[in-house]
């Protein structure tokens, strides 16, 4: 019996939407990045010129692009390990047979994940307030001088990192918790009989068994964190002194504030290329480690 027509009937609507509103624009972005599409072209398409790799070349010579890339890399390199460490610690706590009220703790720790980034970013902006913010108030309680979190270019990115860790750790916590629950209990039993300490059990059973999940979580978190945008948009507006301008923030300004759509597309593609290379390397490295 021929089931082809039915299959295509079921597939067509989704395929058309994804094709027209995602695949075509992605290819369009590549083409756009090779043109000088700007405000003049927006007014009249006759002003559009093909410029080959000029946009990319110009970006690589633009200090602001390198700074935005550096800020983004800084965010990824610090916030990803920190997030995963917090996720792993809370997952281990939740997994412990000694923990009480597990469903309550799990739900409470996960709550920040479902909140709206913009809304909680607004909340944290006030918590980070130099004078009236509770973050400084609590630091003052243990004798630390007030930090100008959002006004000092050195502290604005750490503030955003703290916010991102708070907002996101619950997601990976749930995935890692499921990973911990999948490790057979007899492994620990055998280790205990052999006299292994809690740390040795963690180091030689938990970590290796969790490695594939940690790798996946790491890759997903890295690609998510490279797309930093709403946090600096709301908390710092890219400042102070452009110290929290991320690559996507730059793309947004370039494209929709200054209407340099050609150059903005080149930024988007460079970010995509960087993300691709980084995650591919992680995958490669992770696979080799697990084979060794």
């Amino acid at each position, binding site marked *: *019996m021929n*089931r082809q027509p*039915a*299959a295509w009937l*079921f*597939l067509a*609507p*989704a*395929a058309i*939407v*994804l094709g027209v*509103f995602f695949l*075509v*624009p*992605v290819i*369009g*972005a590549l083409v*756009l990045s090779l043109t000088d599409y700007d405000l003049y072209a927006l007014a009249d398409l006759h002003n559009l010129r093909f410029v080959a790799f000029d946009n990319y070349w110009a970006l690589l010579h633009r200090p602001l692009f390198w700074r935005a890339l550096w800020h983004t890399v800084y965010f990824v390199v610090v916030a990803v390990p920190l997030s995963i460490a917090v996720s792993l610690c*809370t997952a281990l*706590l*939740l997994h*412990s047979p*000694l923990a*009480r009220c597990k469903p309550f703790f799990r*739900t*409470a*720790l*996960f709550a*920040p994940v*479902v*909140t*709206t980034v*913009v*809304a*909680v970013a*607004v*909340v944290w902006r006030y918590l980070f307030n130099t004078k*009236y*913010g*509770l973050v400084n*108030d609590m630091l003052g309680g243990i004798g630390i001088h007030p930090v100008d979190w959002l006004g000092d270019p050195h502290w604005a990115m750490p503030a955003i990192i703290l916010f991102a860790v*708070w907002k996101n750790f*619950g997601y990976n916590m*749930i*995935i890692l918790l499921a990973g911990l629950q999948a490790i057979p209990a007899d492994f620990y039993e055998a280790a205990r009989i052999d006299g292994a300490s809690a740390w040795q059990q963690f180091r030689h059973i938990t970590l290796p068994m969790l490695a594939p999940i940690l790798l996946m979580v790491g890759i997903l978190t890295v690609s998510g964190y490279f*797309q930093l*945008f*709403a946090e600096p*948009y*709301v908390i710092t507006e890219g400042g102070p002194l452009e110290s929290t301008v991320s690559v996507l923030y730059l793309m947004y300004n370039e*494209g929709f504030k200054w209407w340099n*759509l050609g150059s903005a*597309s080149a930024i*988007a*593609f460079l*970010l*995509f290329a960087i*993300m*691709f290379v980084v*995650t591919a390397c992680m995958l490669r490295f992770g696979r080799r480690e697990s084979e060794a």
Partner: protein
Amino acid sequence: MNPRIAKALINGLLIGATIIALFPLLWMLSVSLMYPGEASALPPPLLPTHATLHNYRELFARAGMGRYLLNSLSVSAAITVLSLALNIMAGYAFAKLRFAGCNTLFKAVMGMLAIPAQVAMLPLFLMLKPIGLVNNYGGVIVPAMASAFGIFLVRQYARGIPDELLEAARIDGAGELRIFARIVLPLLKPIMVTLAIYTFLTAWNDFMWPLIVLTGQEHYTLPLGLASLAREHAQDAELMMAGSVITVVPVLVLFLALQRYYLEGLLLGSVKG
């Protein structure tokens, strides 16, 4: 280590982590009930001296919060309903209907997961402009009507439907549409709930694309309205906290009511296919 000390330590750490996770949300609620200016005092107050709904009234009466709320609700609901229908059909087709090019097409859809959505945003804006979907709810809804992730999730789940069940119906002469409506849909109910919550939350919390495509205030969703209020009313902590409460509470309530489905979906989506 003494088991009693270990138990106290583990539960103590869990309580500490929970306080950190929930404190900003509780503080937001508390400050939203304070009178204007009350939160800017030393030492910073934790609870309002006299709770008031003044900020909420102000937001709905003057700042157009009612409109933003309605926009968010209708846009997120439309995206949820439409994308649910499209993703379920496609996910089922990938899982259960063998057709030429099935695997290649599925790989292409999975490949899309690796491409960050922002790459498509600039050309998409230019494409939607001439057809009148810029500054129109349609500009947010239409591109979100199908998602590679949703299709993947449904396929994972639908693979569990036994082929014998479908074959038996075919032998009885049922058409493919009838099989889908009568047999497949009821079996997919759990994943439909999961996908619906997931899609609704994602649509509700979405920021960058709506910010680009909804250019007029009358079309703003809550996150956009809130971000623009935050730039105008930077000093009004109490007012902004009330705005954040209105934005966050609907999704938190939805999550609390249906968290089992949400967390199951999260795990299903993260297992490699």
